[in-house]
């Protein structure tokens, strides 16, 4: 039987993969993908814990909202990457260091 723990382990694995992608990738698109991973890990947690709310299914509804929002966020992220590329001619985050002192 698939227990809550299994869900949480998968979720943690997804989170870790997403975290790794965000920190280590040299491509802004892949970072965006990593963010999607982490959002999905959170959504998976919401769905998994919604078993304790069988009356309202609040967790699952919240997950639906989160998916919509994630899609919007990806759209915004891609737009940012596009404008960053226009400005710097690259999307390697290592080479974009405007935030340093």
């Amino acid at each position, binding site marked *: 039987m698939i227990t809550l723990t299994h869900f949480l382990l998968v979720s943690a694995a997804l989170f870790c993969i997403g*975290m790794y992608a*965000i*920190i280590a990738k040299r491509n802004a698109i892949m970072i965006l993908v990593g963010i999607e991973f982490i959002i999905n890990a959170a959504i998976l947690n919401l769905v998994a814990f919604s078993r304790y709310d069988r009356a309202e299914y609040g967790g699952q509804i919240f997950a639906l909202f989160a998916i919509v929002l994630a899609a919007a966020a990806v759209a915004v992220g891609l737009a940012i990457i596009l404008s960053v590329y226009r400005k710097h001619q690259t999307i390697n985050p*290592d080479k974009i*260091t405007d*935030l*340093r*002192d």
Partner: protein
Amino acid sequence: MNVNFHISPELGSLLVVLLPFAGFLYQLIAGKQARSGLIPSLAMLVSGLISVAFVFPAIWNKTPFSVELEWFTIGQYSLGFGLHLNNLSVLMQLVVCLIALPVHFYSKHYMKNDPGIHRYWTFLSLFCTAMLGLTIASNLFMMYVFWELIGFASYLLIGFWFDRPAAVQANKKAFIINRIGDLGFLLGIAAVFTTYGSLNLLDLFGPDGLVRGTSPLSEGWATFTGCCFLLAAMAKSAQFPLHVWLPDAMEGPTSVSSLIHAATMVAAGVFLLSSIFPIFNQTVLLLTAIIGCFTALIAALFALTQHDIKKILAFSTVSQLGYMIASIGMGAWDAAMLHLTTHAFFKCLLFLGAGAIIHELAHFKSNSGLNFDPQNIQFMGGLRRFMPKTFLLMTVAALALAGFPLTSGFLSKDAILVHSFQWAQQAGGGTLLIPLTLSVVSVLTAFYIGRMIIKVFMGRFHFQKETEQTPIQEATSGMLLPMGFLALGSLAIGFSLHPLSYHQAYILTGLSAATIATESSLIPIVLPIILTLSAAAGWWLGWYWYIRQRYPFSESNKWIAWSANQGYLNQAYERAITNSTLRLSTFTYWIDRNLVDGLVHLSVWFTRQLAFTSAWIDRYLVDGLVNTTAALAYQIGHLLRGVQNGRLQNYLGFAFTILLIGIVYLIFK
């Protein structure tokens, strides 16, 4: 001249002083343009006329006149300025005028062509102003002002040829020694003011003045006061041991020597003592007599062997001043004033004659190309053939100085000598030495002045051969006329109706110190005869020694050398005073150099070391602390700035790491 033309004596005496002063101002303003000396001479002429015509007859043997206005007030005491005219002051003013006048006219010729003649007239006018002002000053303080002015003017005149080092030395010497006297005068003024509370001459010395009215604070105080004034007179009138400036003062022009150092300036001391005579007590008077007598003797001894014609006359002046001072010391200040007056005429004449000789010999020297000192009597002789008029005039003056009958010197010298014998009779004891010494001096005087006349005018001229090409000229009439005027003044007839008896001398009857005793002995009759005979013997001896070549002494004789070197007094002063002063100043210089400067240097060194230490502390401790803090902050900052590299992934990585650590901490807490 209008019959009603009249000048009151007070205005007249004021004009007598102010006219030369106007001349002085004119010379100052006109500067180098005023070379003729016309204005100062005219001013002096008018002064002399006023003095003769209006001041002297109006005051002499009539009521004295004194007026004083307030000058300034200190506390409750006030000092005044004004005029004081009595027999003594108008006599002195007249003498100064009468001597200054021929000297002015003589100078016009004597100083012609001198490049600095405009200065000469300036200084001469200043001097005459000061001397005339001194005579009529109404109080001691005013006298002191003029006294100082006289000293200053004579300083300027002695150093007139300031490019000669000897003249500069001489005027410095004269000035310094006169300052000693000025100090005495100042102390005397202070002492008089302390005792009597007034400086006015009439208040002090008038018929019922303070000096006769009040008794002095104490005998010692009175002696001190008298000694102060005596010191003043000693410096001004060149008394031993302060006489050394006068022979050196001969470095000035001869016309100046005749006016200042024979007739007027040196007379200021005698005049001072005469005008304040009542202030002296017996102790001071005796001291005065001794100093005067000793000066007369020692200066006469020095005069015996001098070779410089002006030095002979200078020592003669010192000697005759000694006579006057001694006479004052014996109470006969009227006789002193008589001698001052007669001496002024014949000594001025002697100097002017000497000036004429020097002038002509200097011409001869430059014409003939010979090299000799035109003042040295060794190189003269036989000049009567070339300058007969000068010879005649100078002989008159020399006879007067030697005290031969029918000359003015006979009257005044006998007055002093006779009085001195009578004074010694009354005083008794060892005081007889003084008249005897004065008699010896009288004989010495006759000898040295005879020697001078004989060596200069008699015998054979030293450069006889050269005179054939370049003869020596007689002095010009511009120089001879003033000398002739003075020669008239050297004759007895100008001073007394009876040319052989001083009792009828106008000056004695006018001043009347009333101390000369009546003729009760043979002295007044015998003494003049003895003195005249011995004076004649002195002249004969001079003729015998110098013309007949029978001079008995060698130059190396110890006494001759002593006299020629002026008793080694200058050397003694040099050693005792100048050298010790120099040594003292060297010593104080050393102290200044090593102790005072050393102290300063030590404190400088100490401060520097202190400053170095505190600089080190500041640099390495205080600054070190600050720098360490700053460096530490910088290093820490530097350490951490690597983190903020603008790479968002790193930021996130760090944040996540910290989060993880936090979580791990929470788990394993």
